[in-house]
């Protein structure tokens, strides 16, 4: 993978993508790179621990669309059109995604019929959340179609990182999202290390895995609390919000930052826990685990809470697969995707088995239970990792170098894909595709057919990030 991928002619592009799928690859992003005659349109396919990079020459002509073959590529193509001025041959409609056209009709799906009307929410919301505009087409209380408009605060982080050194570029990936900072940083660092031919040491792999699992822990606790808040169930919300706060304080004690910022470096790690600190952390995590299990039992017996979850916001296995859903949301729909099982750069080991949902029904209940099922796995992993001191690690030269480095890392909401293209000593292109980016279309799809007042609950069961889109 580390040698530059062969450039595929545009006429063979669709066949090459289909071939990657046929060989068992899973589409995990596409991005444009280069300018002028050197412009490329690249598609990424996950295959076990490897990531296949297909690269088409888009310098002279428009590449053909693959959205009919791979619906998951819809956002990638629309974003490339809006931000990189790339056009796609054969796309019937090119609705704006990142740019905001004033005419509503230009970016919404037309819905007609007796009694249909639109309900508009955002981009300014009553709660303390990011900016996003939701346009619901409804009949009565029933959602027929949801159109989202995000990208309100797009920061241009990917472009801003261009021309910087790999070490300086880390800040751009790290700040893309607060709740996924470690995941994105590790993905970036691994992508750079792949391009620079650096091989992480045992200590580096262990340190990063500890950070990733700490991040997963507080996010999962937060997501359970959010689902409780979505139906106005205050006792559950307060219980899990308290647990999340304890997890954040543990983060602060271990890494000096509640959201673990500044803990990842390219080719190294700064996390340093001696035996005493690791032992204290194990003790606190043990208590947290017992309290989380008790709080979860309370939820299981809250009938009015449980009555809200079943059959709401269903994402079928086929739809999850077609739309490229990842993370707990995909696993709750019956897709067995967990990048942790195929991460040689981390410390999950060959025995790692992702949690299976009690029922892969793809509804809010399944997504909630999926997170609850993953919590014990995370507690076990952390307990095991912290049984010995965690020392700063490094990465040694030894691998093959190349102009492109790609890494995939499983975060709390799913897989972050980071692609780095080096031009000499500097970044030529940084591409960051987080789990939230991958899952937004799945959320939109899952909302259709449900009751309008259930949407906040469905939304919270995915708990997607706006900043990940506004990167």
């Amino acid at each position, binding site marked *: 993978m580390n040698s530059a991928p062969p450039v595929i002619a545009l006429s063979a592009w669709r066949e090459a993508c289909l071939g990657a799928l046929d060989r068992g690859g899973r589409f995990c992003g596409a991005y444009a790179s280069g300018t002028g005659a050197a412009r490329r349109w690249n598609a990424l396919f996950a295959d076990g621990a490897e990531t296949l990079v297909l690269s088409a020459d888009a310098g002279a002509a428009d590449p053909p669309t693959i959205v009919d073959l791979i619906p998951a590529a819809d956002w990638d193509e629309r974003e490339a059109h809006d931000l990189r001025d790339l056009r796609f041959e054969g796309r019937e409609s090119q609705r704006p995604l990142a740019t905001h056209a004033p005419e509503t009709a230009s970016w919404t799906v037309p819905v007609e019929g007796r009694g249909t009307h*639109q*309900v*508009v*929410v955002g981009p300014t*919301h*009553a*709660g303390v959340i990011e900016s996003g505009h939701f346009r619901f087409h409804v009949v009565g*209380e029933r959602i027929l179609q949801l159109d989202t408009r995000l990208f309100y605060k797009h920061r241009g982080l990917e472009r801003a990182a261009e021309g910087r050194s790999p070490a300086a570029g880390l800040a751009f990936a790290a700040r893309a999202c607060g709740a996924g900072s470690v995941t994105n940083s590790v993905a970036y660092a691994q992508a750079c290390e792949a391009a620079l031919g650096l091989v992480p040491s045992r200590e580096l792999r262990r340190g990063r895995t500890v950070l990733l699992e700490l991040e997963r822990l507080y996010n999962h606790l937060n997501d359970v609390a959010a689902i*409780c808040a*979505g*139906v*106005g*169930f*205050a*006792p559950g919300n*307060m219980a899990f919000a*308290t647990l999340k706060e304890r997890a954040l304080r543990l983060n602060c004690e271990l890494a000096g930052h509640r959201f673990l910022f500044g803990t990842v470096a390219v080719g190294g790690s700064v996390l340093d826990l001696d035996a005493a600190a690791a032992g204290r952390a194990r003790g606190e995590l043990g208590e947290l685990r017992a309290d989380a299990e008790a709080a979860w039992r309370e939820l299981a017996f*809250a009938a*009015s*809470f449980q*009555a*809200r979850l079943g059959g709401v916001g269903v994402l079928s296995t086929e739809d999850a697969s077609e739309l490229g859903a990842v993370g707990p949301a995909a696993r709750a729909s019956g897709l067995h995707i967990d990048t942790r099982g195929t991460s040689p750069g981390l410390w999950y080991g060959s025995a790692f088995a992702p949690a299976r949902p009690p029922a892969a029904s793809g509804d809010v209940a399944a997504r909630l239970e999926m997170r609850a099922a993953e919590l014990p796995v995370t507690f076990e992993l952390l307990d095991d990792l912290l049984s010995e001191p965690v020392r700063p690690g490094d990465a040694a030269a030894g691998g093959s170098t190349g102009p492109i480095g790609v890494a995939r890392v499983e975060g709390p909401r799913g897989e972050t894909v980071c692609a780095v293209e080096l031009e000499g000593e500097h970044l030529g292109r940084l591409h960051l595709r987080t789990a939230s980016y991958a899952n937004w279309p799945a959320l939109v799809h899952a909302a259709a057919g449900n*009751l*309008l*007042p*259930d*949407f*906040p609950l469905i939304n919270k069961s995915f708990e997607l990030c706006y900043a990940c889109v506004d990167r």
Partner: protein
Amino acid sequence: MTALAAAIQVLGGLALAPLLPGLVQSMKARLQGRRGPSPLQPYRELRRLWGKSLADPQPTTVVYRLAPCLVAAATVLALLLVPIAGRAPDWSLGNDALVLVGLLALARFALAASSWDTGSGFALMGSGRDLTFAVFAEPLLVLALLLAALPAASTDLVAMAAAAAGSGPWTEPVHWCGALAFALVILVETGRQPIDNPDTHLELTMVHEGPLLEYAGRDLALLEWSAAARHWIVLVLGAELFLPHGGGFWAQLGWLAAGVAALCAGLALTETAQAKMRILRAPGLLAGGCLLALAGLASFLIGGL
């Protein structure tokens, strides 16, 4: 004594009403492990809103402008119908329970009309849900009041309160059915879980809060006060008609205070223990209350044979 009852009815209804939602919020916060606002918070809100200027969305008509006054006026009239501790001053309005139902419906209609006038999506959505619930909630209110009226053989609230006094009614199934049905009425009229969530910021889930979103300043103060006064009306009625009371005026006043406090605590407990129910199931709950009330009616008729 009647003069004191009149004073409590008017001054209490006007001035003490905001204390009730304040009390519920405060108790709820304690139950949920939060410190929460003081019970006096609604007064601070009202003072803040009263000092603010009005803002009319464009285009709106006189319907939008008049709605808060109409809602407040209907609510004040309804307050004057509710007897305090079994006494009611003569305001030449009578104390008919059905008039009370009509006044509450008028307030609901005025607010729904204002939502339609603004054309705001959230306001219309909230009003639409409120009216849908009202289809079930108003018969439930009428039936619950009817069950209290049957033993008194009158729809006069003073007579109904007198007939429900003492321990006698508690041996009658009709009283229990009426009390349970009225408990649901309290949940709907005060806009609380599992029917509605007064604390939510999620516009898509709002019922009673939706139509208020377009209002500001004094308009909003009037509407917020009316919502608090609705607490007063249904909680005082609930205590007077369905909770234990009896004895002289002072004893009845004590029962009333204890009853209203107990109902506030009940609301706080319900809101803490119950999540909000799926919106289309709420009418089913209310229809179940109607069935219960009908069963009470049947038991009364059979008992009377």
